[in-house]
């Protein structure tokens, strides 16, 4: 049987998180040793799989081989250190009979997303160890040079080792607080793939898919956490609209202008079902559940005109109480405008001006409401302010189109 290198790589990528999680435990929290051992196992797979075929229990096979490699390496290092030639041979582990590789991925994700690690490094480490992205891929996803990303990963692994960041699922009394940090990392990975319009399309899709895989993993392991289901529902609903978000020329299409026949119905049904599961847990709704509920209102509207803006405005009012930051307050104002007219929205925006005057979307939202009221001159001023403040090319082109509309 001939097996191409990328087939081995595909298996490797799929099982990476699971095997790394088991290995980090074997190596007592040493990420570098775990990675080295996994590389050894990969090399062995490249040698033997093309000849013998992919083992039935590929993850178990790779884990066993990598564990042996880790034990071997540790022994060699000890030998070097102590200059002792005679040592008992390491115990050779057989491939386990059952298909089970102990699932330590939950521990691994809590370690990678520990609050003592800088947020960007948490994201990078999570993608590297759980997602199995190469350092080059992670670097490309964040538009930084590979050497810089490699250095960042070295620093963070050193911190884990030397500061004693534990390899455990946090105790119940801190689980909710720590889970928040994990979910933030997962959502950031998703948004990096979803919201960015720059960068490699393939890498961005991979980021969204990885974020959803992590969300699924968390929902399997922590099935009674509504926020986990809420985040997974939110990502699923957003992803279902992906095809309609950008037009043929790569320009952004606003939600109200999207061709809803391009939405992935199966994805929407899946997202709605996840949201129902979150509600069924009957716990106070957190920010991800509320955001998913907002996405669900949009998803249920067959036409933009059918959108229940009253409900969305109500949901944003709840969200504002739980999440600080300009984006949520701004979206609330926009929802109020849609539900109760542009004047009501402008009144709300006026209250936010002091905090948000350097935020381009504030001016864009204001410009849009003024445009709807036919106050074209004021609208043009606001569009110009928004354009001056935005760095994103697709957004800038969109705002310039709108500016031409109100000045023509």
């Amino acid at each position: 049987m001939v097996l191409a290198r990328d087939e081995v790589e595909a298996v490797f990528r799929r099982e990476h998180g699971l095997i790394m999680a088991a290995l980090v435990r074997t190596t007592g929290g040493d990420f570098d040793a775990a990675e080295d051992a996994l590389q050894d196992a990969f090399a062995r797979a490249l040698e033997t799989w093309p000849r013998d075929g992919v083992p039935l229990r590929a993850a178990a096979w790779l884990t066993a081989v990598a564990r042996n490699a880790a034990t071997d390496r540790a022994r060699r290092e000890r030998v070097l250190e102590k200059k002792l030639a005679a040592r008992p041979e390491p115990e050779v582990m057989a491939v386990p009979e059952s298909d089970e590789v102990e699932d330590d991925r939950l521990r691994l994700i809590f370690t990678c997303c520990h609050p003592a690690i800088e947020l960007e490094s948490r994201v990078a480490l999570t993608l590297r160890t759980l997602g199995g992205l190469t350092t080059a891929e992670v670097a490309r996803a964040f538009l930084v040079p590979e050497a810089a990303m490699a250095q960042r990963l070295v620093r963070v692994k050193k911190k884990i080792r030397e500061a004693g960041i534990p390899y455990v699922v946090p105790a119940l009394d801190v689980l909710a607080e720590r889970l928040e940090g994990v979910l933030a990392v997962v959502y950031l990975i998703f948004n990096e793939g979803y919201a960015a319009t720059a960068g490699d399309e393939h890498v961005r899709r991979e980021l969204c898919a990885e974020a959803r895989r992590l969300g699924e993993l968390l929902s399997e392991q922590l099935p009674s956490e509504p926020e986990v289901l809420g985040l997974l529902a939110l990502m699923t609903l957003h992803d279902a609209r992906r095809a309609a978000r950008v037009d043929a020329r790569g320009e952004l299409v606003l939600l109200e202008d999207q061709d809803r026949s391009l939405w992935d119905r199966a994805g929407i049904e899946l997202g709605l079902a996840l949201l129902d599961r979150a509600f069924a847990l009957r716990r106070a709704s957190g920010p991800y559940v509320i955001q998913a509920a907002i996405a669900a209102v949009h998803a249920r509207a067959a036409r933009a005109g059918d959108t229940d803006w009253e409900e969305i405005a109500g949901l944003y009012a709840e969200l504002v109480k739980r999440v600080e930051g300009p984006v949520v307050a701004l979206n609330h104002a926009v929802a109020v405008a849609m539900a109760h007219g542009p004047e009501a929205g402008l009144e709300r925006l006026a209250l936010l001006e002091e905090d948000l005057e350097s935020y381009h979307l504030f001016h864009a939202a204001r410009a849009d409401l003024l445009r709807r009221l036919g106050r074209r001159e004021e609208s043009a001023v606001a569009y110009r302010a928004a354009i001056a403040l935005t760095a994103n090319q697709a957004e800038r082109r969109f705002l310039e189109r709108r500016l031409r509309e109100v000045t023509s």
Partner: protein
Amino acid sequence: MRYLLLIYGDEKAFAGLPAKELEGVLSDFQAYTASVKEAGAHIASQRLRPASTATSVRVRGGKKLITDGPFAETKEQLGGFYMIEAKDLDEAVAWAAKIPGARYGTIEVRPIWEM
């Protein structure tokens, strides 16, 4: 693992506390120290004199340079420390969060470089 918990805070604000409140904070510190000892996690702890009493020493080209004041002038100053034994960073952070000074200032948690 051993960790050093460094207590940073605004000395001026602390010195300006009414006597009653100051007494309260000090007795909180005593209670905290007792709880660390009781848990068997206590290695050492001290309160420091204010940063205005600090002297900084550098040796450059074999020459001793002595200056008045702390290493860096900052809004929050090092006011004391605990050295503790903890299983991992989570346990050390849990102890740090219980230090009364954490409510006013910042606790820096540093692992000891074991030789």
